[in-house]
């Protein structure tokens, strides 16, 4: 079975899979309009028609569809893809489950509407005014011309730079962590980097790490690590951290 010759019959596209890929890559077909699930179902149907499992075809198909899905997800949900990437695996799973469930409910509701429409097919009613009814006159109160100018100003306004506030939220300034670590080291001579990062997002952890390097460059601290992936110990200059004999919190998968 040759995956690229798979015949598709979708809302947005009809023809072989190969042509679909070509059109998408040439940007002549918007991936947002393509029902990827429909492609998968078609492939499974073709697979089911055959006696043997065609592993090569499955492998090729998986790679192509995964690439399509990724492209589509990026196109559709630029912001959200980043949001999901920021989530812990459990949270991401929870979020995905919620969305899938929501979509399923709407699919179900769409099915209900289809049934209802079929049931109501024999209900005829008049649309619009009656033949000999008086013509109602729609009167409009005097309006302020300034409203028109306001509306044009809104339409001419650059879309709000939403992303900036997001960035501020997602990428706290390095200086914030520099100050935080300095304050910490003014109270204690050393601290465990990992233990300090509990509850932070991955991006925040990265920024915190940058702050650490910054302090190291300024010769304010020393950094030590017993082994790759072992806890990172941070100490004021002059107070070497003898980490080996101390029990510290384990470096967990999250901060990796």
């Amino acid at each position, binding site marked *: 079975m040759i995956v690229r010759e798979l015949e598709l019959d979708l809302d947005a596209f009809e023809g072989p899979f190969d042509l679909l890929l070509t059109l998408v890559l040439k940007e002549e077909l918007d991936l947002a309009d393509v029902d990827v699930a429909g492609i998968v179902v078609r492939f499974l149907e073709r697979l089911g028609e055959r006696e043997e499992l065609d592993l090569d075809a499955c492998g090729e198909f998986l790679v192509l569809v995964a690439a399509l899905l990724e492209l589509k997800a990026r196109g559709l949900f630029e912001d959200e893809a980043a949001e999901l990437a920021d989530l812990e695996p459990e949270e991401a799973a929870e979020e995905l489950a919620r969305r899938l469930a929501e979509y399923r409910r709407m699919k179900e509701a769409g099915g209900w509407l289809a049934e209802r429409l079929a049931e109501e097919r024999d209900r005829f009613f008049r649309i619009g005014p*009656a*033949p000999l009814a008086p013509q109602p006159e729609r009167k409009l*109160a*005097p309006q302020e011309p300034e409203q*028109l*100018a306001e509306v044009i*100003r809104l*339409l001419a306004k650059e879309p709000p730079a939403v992303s900036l506030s997001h960035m501020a939220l997602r990428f706290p300034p390095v200086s914030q962590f520099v100050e935080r670590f300095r304050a910490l080291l003014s109270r204690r001579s050393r601290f465990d980097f990992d233990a300090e990062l509990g509850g932070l997002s991955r991006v925040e952890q990265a920024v915190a790490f940058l702050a650490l390097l910054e302090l190291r460059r300024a010769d304010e601290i020393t950094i030590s690590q017993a082994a790759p992936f072992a806890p990172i110990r941070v100490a004021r200059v002059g107070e070497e951290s003898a980490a080996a004999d101390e029990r510290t919190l384990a470096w967990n998968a999250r901060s990796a």
Partner: protein
Amino acid sequence: MERPLRLVTANPLDQLARTLEALLVVAGAPLPLEELVAAADDDGERVEMALGLLSERYREGRSGIVLEQVAGGWAFRASRDAAVACGRLFERPVQRGLSQASLETLAIVAYLGPVTRPEIARIRGVAADSAVAGLVERGLISEAGRDDGVGGAVKYRTTPMFERVFGLESLSQLPRLDDLAGDVDDLRERLHAVAEQRTA
């Protein structure tokens, strides 16, 4: 009221009369006899007889619904007794403002007009068909030729009624947009550019 109804019940025309009632209550314009005959898929004479029965049942002084034969055919109307009540129904309160969709469309036509529907849609980022139709119906905008002559998209401009409602002597009295653009072409360009960003 009872006698003719009893007659109908006993009459094989009853079913046909009901079908005619149904057709007449759905119709948006008077229905000529031929159309009633074709839709009921019955005999012309029988349809006329059934209409006679219905004229009797739906006549002035007997029902609030009156069956009337007018120039174009047969139609239901309200009884004269109910004229005052119907007047109250159709007397619309003066509307205080326009919807967001109408206001945006009207502003674009006022500042950029004559302007086509596709251009309004491009600037607003959504189809403009119903908003344009609503404003035409209200008499606030009207057609003003076609883009590139015959065959192009219809263009729209504001009407004298628009100027009355907004208290303007002419379009030149529209609030100035100096903060946005120098002239209409600048404004048009700016609106298109922003619209593109919005959809991107």
